[in-house]
């Protein structure tokens, strides 16, 4: 993966209309789930988002490649908006940014 923004895992997203430069997205909450594998990755994301208000943005740092595909898919299926999925080149880490739309 050489590009900054991964299309892997986002191609099927219907709600992934918002792509903004990283600097313009302000997150209300950040979680680090490095070291976790599925399904605990999404479990942690979901529990964190339950504490947020609709409209708020979460930034998720992870290192499990499968989760970089699965989390955006699951978020989208459950009505949230995935704003960005990005591999941090050379680190093995990924960042997902999503906006909570619904409880």
């Amino acid at each position: 993966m050489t590009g900054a923004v991964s299309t892997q895992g986002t191609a099927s997203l219907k709600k992934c209309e918002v792509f903004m430069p990283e600097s313009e997205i302000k997150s209300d909450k950040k979680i680090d789930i490095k070291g976790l594998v599925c399904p605990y990755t999404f479990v942690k994301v979901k529990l964190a988002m339950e504490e947020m208000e609709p409209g708020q943005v979460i930034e998720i740092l992870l290192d499990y490649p499968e989760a970089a595909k699965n989390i955006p898919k699951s978020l989208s299926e459950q009505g949230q908006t995935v704003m960005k999925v990005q591999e941090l080149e050379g680190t093995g880490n990924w960042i997902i940014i999503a906006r909570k739309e619904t409880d």
Partner: protein
Amino acid sequence: MEFTEDQIQRYSRHIILAEVGGKGQKKLLSAKVLMVGAGGLGCPAGFYLAAAGVGTIAIVDDDRVELSNLQRQIAHSTKTLGMLKADSAKQTFESLNPDVNVVAIKGRLNKDNILDIIRDYDIVVDGSDNFPTRYLVNDACVFLKKPLVSGAILRFEGQVTTVLPGDGHCYRCLFEVPPPPGLVPSCQEAGVLGVLPGVIGSLQAMEVLKLILGKGQPLKNSLLIYDALRANFRKVKVPKNPECPVCSEHPSITELQDYDAGYCQL
């Protein structure tokens, strides 16, 4: 409350469901369910409720575990023969899930004690094996407006229905009075394939979880009938009876009654 890491792992398959989530799981953990009977239906129903993390489960049963129970009553075991079923089931459910507080009520429901016993619980699960108890439980739930998930089995056929007092039918809308003693054979006389109560008790547990979570459509105003031999489920409509003796606007039954114990009791 905050989940422990163990709870996050234990309930992870619930939490990732959109219909449950952490909030739904917390509802389950704070729910209080009372089960009438720890027999064929109560064992699987209680097993799944305990696994799901329903925080308080009361079990009313005055029987002891017998060898002939073990073909279907899966919460008991050869090691608990002779033990009170309420204690045996408590031991099983609490070892499955230490989050669950199981209250063993070693006695029999009657018109004088039932209201006090079920008053503190959110939902009642009827897995009783006799008509006097079935009608007593229905009437008490109607009086206290407690949701009731009722199950019944015989041979190869089972039934499930959910009574939401004030918002649908009750058991007497379906069958107004108990059948005369001796008309309907008991499992003792007629037999039952051991898996059947597993199916019906599991359906009862599913109804309970839906009620706690407030998701899906309960078996309100309907009766689900399972025919094991034909592998067939039928859902029949059960309208609320405007002349129902207990849940209509002008009930003829206004106090609880103990039917004569001329009925076979297992």
